[in-house]
């Protein structure tokens, strides 16, 4: 789960990472009142989970009450790369002497947390990594040892931060590592980390990704999830414990097992089609789960045809067939279905479908044949 900037800063504050003080606002009045209390100049910042907010006009400095209102008005409701702004964060404008970059990421290859520090803050770090890789100091931390003070010093010296802030920058890295471990994050990123003219060190932005699998241990973080920000089909699927990702195309896909579903999307694309979703009905799917999944797939109005690709292992093909028959009973789909059943109880499953004689349902015996057929039907 990705946190919004202000949520990340609240988490930071709990662990002693210095952040500018600010307030959350959802209306123009709230934003202007917050800016009045904080004092001017203050910054009005769009709260959406996407980079490039500044370039899109989602971050503005207000010099007085009138400007605060004007900016809040402009930013609320703004579309930033497909996301609508519903929330603002208002904070005191910081004076900036230097901009750094700091992060703690979950390094899958090394199987260890990776801490990074650079004096090239304020820009896209992937670009810095590309154009000037030497400008980023990196250090893997043994998760059984944890972050030590020497780690912080070493990174600060290697990144060549200003000599007078080596200690506070090292301390901030230690606090960010504490956030990473204590909150069970998979990413903690600060860009920019600033040094003020008074030589104070602060996190001016906060990007935090939490591990969904660990939220049961962090009920206060689980509450930060806002279902209204999620895609309606994805939300519906989540409520039904289905793994669903919405895509841009018009062919609904259902399969069992993440790898097989990904592979099905690829085979459909190779056949010239465009998948409307990824849906993994999971291992051992029962009939009700299949009915429920069909409802989710068809709730996307772009879907013109649906492909079921099942290779039964623990999943039994007769259960899948029963689920599909049940779904037709309840919702009467108007789009054609192509069904490929293979594996455990596949003969029974195909026979059940043949007996049910559902309108507009085609059975295929191979994955490639099924993909061809569904692409023809969606055209």
């Amino acid at each position, binding site marked *: 789960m990705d946190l919004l900037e202000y949520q990340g800063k609240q988490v930071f504050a709990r662990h002693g990472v210095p952040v500018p003080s600010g307030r959350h606002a959802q209306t123009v009045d709230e934003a202007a009142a917050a800016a009045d209390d904080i004092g001017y100049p203050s910054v009005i910042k769009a709260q959406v989970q996407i980079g490039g907010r500044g370039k899109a006009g989602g971050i503005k400095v207000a010099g007085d009450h009138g400007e605060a209102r004007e900016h809040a008005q402009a930013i609320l409701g703004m579309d930033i790369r497909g996301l609508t702004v519903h929330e603002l964060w208002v904070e005191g404008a910081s004076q900036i002497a230097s901009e750094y970059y700091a992060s703690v990421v979950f390094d899958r290859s090394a199987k260890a947390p990776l801490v990074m520090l650079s004096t090239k803050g304020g820009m896209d770090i992937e670009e810095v990594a590309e154009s000037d890789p030497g400008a980023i100091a990196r250090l893997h931390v043994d998760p059984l040892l944890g972050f030590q003070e020497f780690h912080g010093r070493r990174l600060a010296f290697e990144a060549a931060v200003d000599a007078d802030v080596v200690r506070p920058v090292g301390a901030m890295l230690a606090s960010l590592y504490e956030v990473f471990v204590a909150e069970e994050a*998979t990413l903690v990123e600060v860009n920019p980390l600033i040094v003020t003219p008074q030589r104070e060190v602060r996190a001016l932005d906060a990007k935090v990704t939490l591990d969904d699998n660990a939220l049961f241990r962090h009920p206060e973080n689980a509450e930060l999830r806002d279902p209204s920000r999620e895609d309606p089909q994805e939300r519906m699927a989540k409520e039904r414990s289905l793994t669903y990702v919405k895509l841009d195309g018009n062919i609904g896909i259902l399969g069992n097992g993440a790898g097989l579903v*990904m*592979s099905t999307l*690829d085979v459909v694309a190779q056949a010239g089609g465009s998948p409307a979703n990824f849906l993994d009905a999971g291992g051992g799917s029962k009939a009700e789960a299949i009915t429920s999944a069909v409802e989710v797939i068809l709730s996307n109005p772009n879907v013109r045809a649906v492909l079921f690709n099942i290779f039964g*292992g623990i999943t039994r093909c007769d259960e899948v067939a029963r689920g599909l028959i049940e779904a037709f009973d309840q919702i009467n789909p108007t789009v054609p279905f192509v069904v490929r059943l293979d*594996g455990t109880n596949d003969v029974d499953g195909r026979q059940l479908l043949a007996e049910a004689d559902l309108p507009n349902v085609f059975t295929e015996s191979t994955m490639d044949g099924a993909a061809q057929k569904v692409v023809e039907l969606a055209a």
Partner: protein
Amino acid sequence: MSILVDSNTKLVVSGITGREGTFHSLRNRDYGTQVVGGVTPGKGGQDVEGIPVYDTFHAAVAETGANTAMIFVPPRFAADSILEAEDAGIDLIVAITEGIPAHDELRAFNVIKKNGRARLIGPNCPGILSPGKANVGIIPAAFFKEGNVGVVSRSGTLTYQIGNVIAQEGFGNSTIVGIGGDPVPGSDFIDIVALFQEDPETELIVMCGEIGGDAEERAAEFIASGVTKPVVAYIAGFTAPPGKTMGHAGAIVSGSRGTAKAKAEALESKGVRVGRTPTEVAELAASLLAAAA
């Protein structure tokens, strides 16, 4: 021969008294695997259809001489169970559980690596099948027969799909290893490919990868550096959009990293044949085997 599991495997199952744990333990026993015990704290002294249950891994190992563990407990208890098995001296730990917190996996991985005594397969994997010898996990054994193709995969059902087409072409498997779909797998492609390279029965290796991480790219380097057996690969997720987790926690394209295209190119640049569909992978494998025969 085969790798990891065979007739010498003595399996103890953590979570044997749960619904899924019981079901699959009995299936594994029916297949011929020596299932010597189970572990459920507080249920020591009971049995599951004749399989004795112990309170701790230590007791199970002392009583049965178990050398392999299968982990079936819910995610919040799984890392602890893995570490208990390791502490009790188990050689091979197969973790089926899906949804283990990432930091728990990180800790378990690093403890196992530091101590250097046990090998971990998974988590979030379908297990290991050596056809005709032993089945540890949830792989539907009926589709596979003994043979000379070694399979290593991040995905379960995709493996069944490819394995089934290979079987239809008339070939069998030495061992099928599901390494799992999580970001921190206990064993990587490299670990398993190295074992297949040393296994006299395995003549060809099939590797099923997917988007996310760089395990496939690192495997490509490893294969080029000293694997003499032919390797055929498949990569799932060409159409996956960046930033979205495609079912498996580890299957995510981050920015421009971890794409299927980059993985396929890395493998092909090292001489590994990459099939664009599961059917093509099976056909490539079959034609290489037929040519060698």
